[in-house]
């Protein structure tokens, strides 16, 4: 027999209570891990989708505010140190329901592969993309979500462009280089312009949403950015040029408020669980005052009794922490696996190992906070007074 035996047996004294408390800790740690993954999702997206040498050019007041003239493309190509320019135009079509939305763009099929070099499009696929009028390149995640295959025809309805609907033939995939890329839908600009010919006099076919610009060297980024914006500063469509990192960070910052609220809710849940666990620990100690008195009578010192009782609380907490953190890691990393189409938005959450470890430490902290007061109280019990209660 050892003190470890004593701890284990005491936890088994009221199994229902031990199991329920452990599960409460496990569920709260699962939630906390999911919540703590949110900031790391942001960082992960920024790291993975940003190319240091690529700039994004939009309307000065934002993509949503206004578009840019197609004519700007040639002018930007002529800026010194620019090695490539491509353009994208937001189509905004819907496949099935609005909630199943995915980003879809009309793109310059001639320059797409050159400017998005890290995507490593298959050369034969790119060739076909340039030739097939209504060909579409679709991200892996979107393909899996709707069960599409290469060769399928899909229609995107009710676009933001006069509710125009277009039918495409899927001819290839957008390589799965980052979480954003795997959701994209690209089709040739020419097909877009053909569909919007009836609205040509409204300027529909001469506009783009943004340009992506490749620069020859890092040290020329600032120069190119200034040159582009200066060129159009006094025009009817002034531009704002930034690195792709800045562009994406600005887009993601619109979610910061809700992320903070979600994180606050998560930590309030942890606080509630601390109170529940503390109450459980206190009940457990109260029920065993006579045993604590006996142990003290035998000669167990305050610190030994404190350690025994606190160990019980910590063990429940750590067990609950592992039961919560490990499944959270497995589920929130399933974005990498074939489970991802069934997880919907969760598939973008890729929980790092560090968050799992932090989750277990938070559980340990919960156990410490919950157990320290009742354990200390029991350890400081006056033996003679306690014996009067039990004899």
């Amino acid at each position: 027999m050892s003190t470890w035996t004593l701890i284990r047996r005491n936890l088994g004294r009221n199994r229902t209570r031990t199991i329920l408390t452990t599960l409460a800790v496990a569920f709260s740690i699962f939630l906390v891990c999911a919540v703590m993954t949110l900031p790391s999702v942001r960082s992960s997206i920024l790291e993975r989708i940003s190319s240091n040498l690529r700039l994004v050019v939009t309307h000065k007041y934002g993509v949503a505010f206004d578009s840019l003239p197609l004519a700007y493309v040639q002018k930007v190509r002529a800026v010194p140190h620019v090695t490539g320019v491509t353009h994208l135009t937001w189509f905004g079509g819907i496949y099935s329901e609005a909630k199943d939305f995915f980003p879809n763009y009309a793109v310059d099929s001639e320059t797409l592969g050159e400017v998005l070099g890290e995507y490593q499009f298959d050369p034969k696929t790119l060739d076909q993309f340039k030739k097939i009028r209504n060909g579409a390149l679709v991200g892996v995640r979107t393909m899996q979500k709707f069960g599409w295959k290469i060769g399928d025809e899909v229609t995107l309805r009710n676009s933001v462009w006069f509710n125009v609907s277009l039918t495409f033939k899927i001819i290839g995939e957008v390589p799965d280089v980052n979480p954003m890329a795997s959701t994209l839908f690209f089709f040739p600009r020419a097909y877009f312009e053909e569909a919007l010919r009836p609205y040509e006099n409204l300027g529909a076919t001469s506009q783009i949403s943004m340009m992506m610009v490749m620069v020859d060297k890092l040290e020329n980024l600032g120069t190119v950015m200034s040159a582009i914006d200066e060129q159009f500063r006094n025009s009817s469509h002034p531009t704002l040029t930034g690195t792709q990192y800045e562009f994406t960070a600005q887009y993601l910052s619109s979610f910061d408020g809700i992320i903070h609220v979600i994180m606050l809710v998560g930590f309030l849940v942890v606080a509630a669980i601390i109170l529940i666990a503390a109450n459980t620990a206190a009940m457990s100690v109260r029920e065993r005052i006579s045993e604590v008195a006996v142990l003290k009578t035998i000669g167990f010192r305050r610190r030994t009794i404190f350690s025994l009782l606190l160990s019980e609380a910590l063990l429940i907490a750590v067990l609950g922490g592992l039961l919560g953190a490990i499944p959270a890691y497995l589920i929130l990393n399933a974005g990498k696996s074939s489970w991802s189409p069934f997880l919907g938005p969760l598939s973008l959450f890729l929980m790092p190992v560090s968050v799992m470890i932090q989750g277990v430490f938070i559980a340990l902290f919960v156990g410490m906070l919950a157990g320290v007061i009742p354990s200390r109280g029991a350890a400081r019990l006056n033996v003679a007074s306690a014996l009067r209660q039990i004899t």
Partner: protein
Amino acid sequence: MIAINQVSRVYRRGADEVHALEGVNLQIPDGTFAALMGPSGSGKSTLLNLIAGLDQPSSGNIIVNGQNLSGLSEDQLAAWRAAHVGFVFQFYNLIPVLSAAENVEVPLLLTRLSKADRRTHVGTALRIVGLAERKDHRPNQLSGGEQQRVAIARAIVVDPTLLVADEPTGDLDAKNADDILTLLQRLKNEFHKTVVMVTHDPRAERYVDQTFHLDKGVLVNGDEKIKN
């Protein structure tokens, strides 16, 4: 030798003071079986707790086998108790989630004995109380008398010089009570323990060597009755 010299114990209950013991003087020689008797509230358990090192007197001193207990810190008293005192309670107070052998082993967790040595000590203690064959039973599988014998085994497993028992037969029927008193007497005779017992049981007078009567915190028979 247990020497109690002018010992008083006062408890404070808010603004009131309770004089649990007043100016008690007594001596208990080594190897004696002594009983502390008296009505409820007479201070018997208070005196027992002081002898066992569970409490400190408000005045006076207590010397047990040369060790002056007065003024020792809580940790020092705990260490002294672990090595020198075995305690037997009225309601046994065994740990319900441990077997009989594991309950007996609990005091040995405070020693540096190896697992094998602990097992040997436990076996010896259980044989002395006649319960070796029930070592794997949990307390709820034992009768009241058996549980008290396990408690006595727990009290003697560290081979203490002093055994204190607070109403050890209080929750037992007549037959079991006699068995327990016989066992305590045997521990005194064969193993030379000093046994100090608080009891209301009139049967106890047949087994003990000394009887001390207390009333309202005062020793009423100042000269102990010593059996030859």
